[in-house]
C-alpha cells in the first residue's frame, strides 16, 4: 500500500501545532456563530421571541397575575370590643371579598397564624376605634399581610382598605350627617416576610426567571433539530468541526439575544414596577448569565435529542415553563409544597435564580449570600452543555 501524497498542513513544532489547532477551533466557532446569526436574521421569529416576549409577559403578569380572588382568609383582632368596632368588622366582612376565618386576641399571634397558614392577613381594630368614629377622626386600623402569599397580598391590601374606608365612612355619616364625607380613614399596613408592601416586587424576580427560562430554552431548541431535519448536519460532520465547537458557535448568537432579553426584563421591572436594586450588580449579572447559559444548554440538549422541530418546541415549552412557574417558588412558596415536590424543586435552576434575584434586588445581598445559588446554577449549566456534547456525539453514530 503506497502512502498518498496528501498530508495535513506542515507544522514546525508541537507548540506551533497546538496554536494552529486553537486558532482553527476559534475560526470554526466563529463561522458557526456567524451562520447562526444569519439564520436569526433571515427568520426573525427568534428576535421577536427574545425582545417582545419578555415585555409582553412582564406587563401581562405584572399587572394581571393577581387573579381576582375573593374569600381571602382573614383573622380579626378586635382590641376595641365596642358595638362600633363590631359593626365596622361586620361591614368589612359583609362584602365577601374578605372572609373572616377566626379571631385572635392580639396581633402578636399573627406570626403563628401565618406559619400555620390559617389566614393570609390579620386585621386589627385598635382600642379607640369607636371614639375615632364618634369624633369623625381617621380610624387607624392595622392590617398584617403574609407577604409570602404574593398573589393575594396586593388584593388584600386594596380590598381591606376600601372595605374599611366605606364602612367607617358609612358609620360616620350615620353618626354625624353628610359633613363626615371629608373625614379621612387610615389603614396602616404591615407586610410580614415581604417588607416592601407591594406584591410586584416579589413577583418580578419570579417572572424574570420564568420569562428567561422560556425564551432561552425556546431560542436554542430549534437550532440543532432544524439541522437534523434538513440533514445539513451530515454536511457539517464531514468537516473537521467538533461537536463542542458546533455547540459553542451556536450558543454565541442566542446568548447575546438572551442577554438582551434579560436586560429588557430588568429595565421594564425597574421602570414600570419600581423594582429596586439594593445589592451587588455584579452578583446579579453573574446569576443571570449562569442561569441563561443553563437554559440555553437545556434547549440545546432538547434540540439534539428531539431531531424534529415540532417535538423540540413542545418539549422545550413544557420543560421550561412548568418547572420555572410551579416548582421554583415563583407562584407557590417552596416551603408549602408537598415533600416530593420540594425535593424535585432542588434540581430546578429557576429556584436558585429566583432566590438569588430576590436576595440581590430586595434584600441587598451580594456574592457571599447567593454563593450557593451561583454554585447550583453553574452546576446546571455545565451539566446541560456536557450532556449535550455527549449526546450529540452519540446521536451521530
Amino acid at each position, binding site marked *: 500500500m503506497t502512502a498518498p501524497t496528501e*498530508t*495535513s498542513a506542515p507544522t514546525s513544532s508541537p507548540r506551533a501545532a497546538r496554536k494552529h489547532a486553537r486558532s482553527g477551533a476559534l475560526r470554526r466557532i466563529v463561522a458557526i456563530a456567524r*451562520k447562526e446569526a444569519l439564520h436569526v436574521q433571515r427568520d426573525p421569529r427568534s428576535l421577536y421571541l427574545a425582545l417582545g416576549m419578555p415585555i409582553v409577559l412582564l406587563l401581562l403578569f405584572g399587572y394581571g397575575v393577581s387573579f381576582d380572588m375573593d374569600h381571602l382568609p382573614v383573622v380579626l383582632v378586635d382590641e376595641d370590643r365596642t358595638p362600633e368596632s363590631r359593626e365596622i368588622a361586620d361591614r368589612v366582612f359583609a362584602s365577601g371579598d374578605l372572609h373572616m376565618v377566626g379571631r385572635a386576641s392580639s396581633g402578636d399571634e399573627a406570626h403563628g397564624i401565618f406559619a400555620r397558614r390559617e389566614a393570609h392577613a390579620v386585621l386589627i381594630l385598635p382600642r379607640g376605634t369607636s371614639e375615632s368614629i364618634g369624633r369623625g377622626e381617621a380610624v387607624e386600623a392595622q392590617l398584617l399581610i403574609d407577604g409570602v402569599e404574593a398573589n393575594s397580598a396586593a388584593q388584600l391590601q386594596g380590598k381591606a382598605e376600601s372595605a374599611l374606608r366605606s364602612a367607617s365612612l358609612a358609620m360616620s355619616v350615620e353618626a354625624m350627617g353628610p359633613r363626615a364625607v371629608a373625614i379621612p380613614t387610615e389603614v396602616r399596613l404591615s407586610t410580614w416576610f415581604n417588607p416592601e408592601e407591594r406584591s410586584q416586587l416579589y413577583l418580578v424576580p419570579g417572572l424574570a426567571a420564568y420569562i428567561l427560562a422560556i425564551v432561552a430554552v425556546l431560542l436554542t431548541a430549534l437550532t440543532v433539530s432544524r439541522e437534523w431535519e434538513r440533514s445539513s448536519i451530515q454536511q457539517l460532520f464531514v468537516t*473537521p468541526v467538533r461537536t463542542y465547537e458546533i455547540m459553542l458557535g451556536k450558543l454565541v448568537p442566542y446568548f447575546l439575544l438572551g442577554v438582551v432579553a434579560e436586560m429588557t426584563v430588568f429595565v421594564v421591572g425597574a421602570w414600570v414596577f419600581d423594582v429596586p436594586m439594593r445589592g451587588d450588580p455584579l452578583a446579579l449579572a453573574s446569576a443571570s448569565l449562569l442561569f441563561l447559559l443553563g437554559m440555553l444548554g437545556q434547549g440545546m440538549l432538547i434540540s439534539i435529542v428531539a431531531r424534529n422541530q415540532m417535538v423540540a418546541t413542545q418539549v422545550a415549552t413544557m420543560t421550561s415553563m412548568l418547572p420555572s412557574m410551579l416548582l421554583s417558588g415563583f407562584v407557590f412558596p417552596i416551603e408549602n409544597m408537598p415533600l416530593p415536590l420540594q425535593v424535585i424543586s432542588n434540581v430546578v435552576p429557576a429556584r436558585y435564580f429566583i432566590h438569588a434575584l430576590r436576595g440581590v434586588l430586595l434584600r441587598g445581598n451580594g456574592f457571599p449570600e447567593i454563593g450557593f445559588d451561583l454554585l447550583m446554577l453553574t452546576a446546571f449549566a455545565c451539566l446541560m452543555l456536557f450532556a449535550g456534547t455527549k449526546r450529540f456525539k452519540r446521536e451521530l453514530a
Partner: protein
Amino acid sequence: MTVRSIVVEGLGRRFGDFVAVRDVSFHVEKGEIFGYLGANGAGKSTTIRMLSGLLEPTSGRALVAGHDIAKAPDKVKASIGYMSQKFSLYLDLTVRENLEFFGGIYGSWGRALSRRVDETLESIDMRSLAETSTAALPGGLRQRLALGSALFHKPPIVFLDEPTAGVDPASRREFWKLIRGISSAGTTVFVTTHYMDEAEYCARIGLMVAGKLVALDTPAALKSEWVPGRILRFEGEGLVRALSEIRRTHGVVEAQSFGNGVHVRFDPGHTTDQSVLAAVAALPAVKVRLTEPVEATLEDVFLAAADRKAEDAVRGGAS
C-alpha cells in the same frame, strides 16, 4: 507507480440483523473517477458514509488519503469533500454565505476566504448568482453549489453521492463536465449514480447488488465480461413477436426488445453479422427496415449482474 487514494479491505456495515454492506474490497487511484453503481438500497450511500467518517464500519478497514477511517477520522475529514445524496446546504443563506460558511469551517479567514469564494464561484460558473438566496436556485444549480462547497478546501478526494439525481439532462452534462475537470486536475472522484450513461464517464465502475460488490472494472471490460459478443440492432415489423425464433437462431446468445427495435447478441466465434441478418430477415412475417451494430450498454451489464446475483442467491439457498 500509481498512488492509491482509497484502499478498502473487507469493509462491512450491518444495522442490527440487516447487512447493508458486506465484505467490500477495492481501491481507487489518485485522480481517478471511480463510479459506484447500484439499485436503491444496494449500499452505495452506506459505503460512502463509512469512507467519509460519518458512519463506523462494523467490519473491515479502509484507508482514505492514507488515513485509517477508524483510527484517524479527523485526518480523513480534512482530506475529503463530501456531497450528500440529500441537498444539505442552508436554503436561507445566499450562495456566497454558504460558501463562506464552509470556508470558515475549514479554517479559511479574511481576505484568503473571500478570494477562495470568488475562485470557487468562478469554477462552478455561478459568479452572477453569488447574492442569490439558495432556496431560489433550481436543482441543477443547487447541486453545482454543493459541489463547489465540497471542493472549497481543495480536498484531494471528493465523494459525490448521486450528485445528479433529479437533475435535468442538460444540467447533468454540465455537471459531468465539472467532474471531469476536477479529476483531470488530480482530484480523486468517488461518485455514485443511478444513470448508466453517466457511469460511462467513469474510469472504473464498481457494481453493488444488495450490499455486495459483484463486479469492478472499466466500463469496456465490464461489458465484454458480462455481455460478451456482438450486438446487432434491428428495426422493422414483426420483430418483437419473432423474438423466441430469433433466440433459436444458431450462434445467438440473447435477443431482447429495446426501444422501438430489437437487440440481438451473438457469439462472433460461431456466426457472422451476415448470417444473423439473413436468418432474421428470412423469418416469416418479419420485415427488416434497418440493421446496425451497437455497443453493449452498462445497463445490460447491470441487468446481467443483478440476474446472476439472484441466481446465485437461489442456488445458495437451495444447497
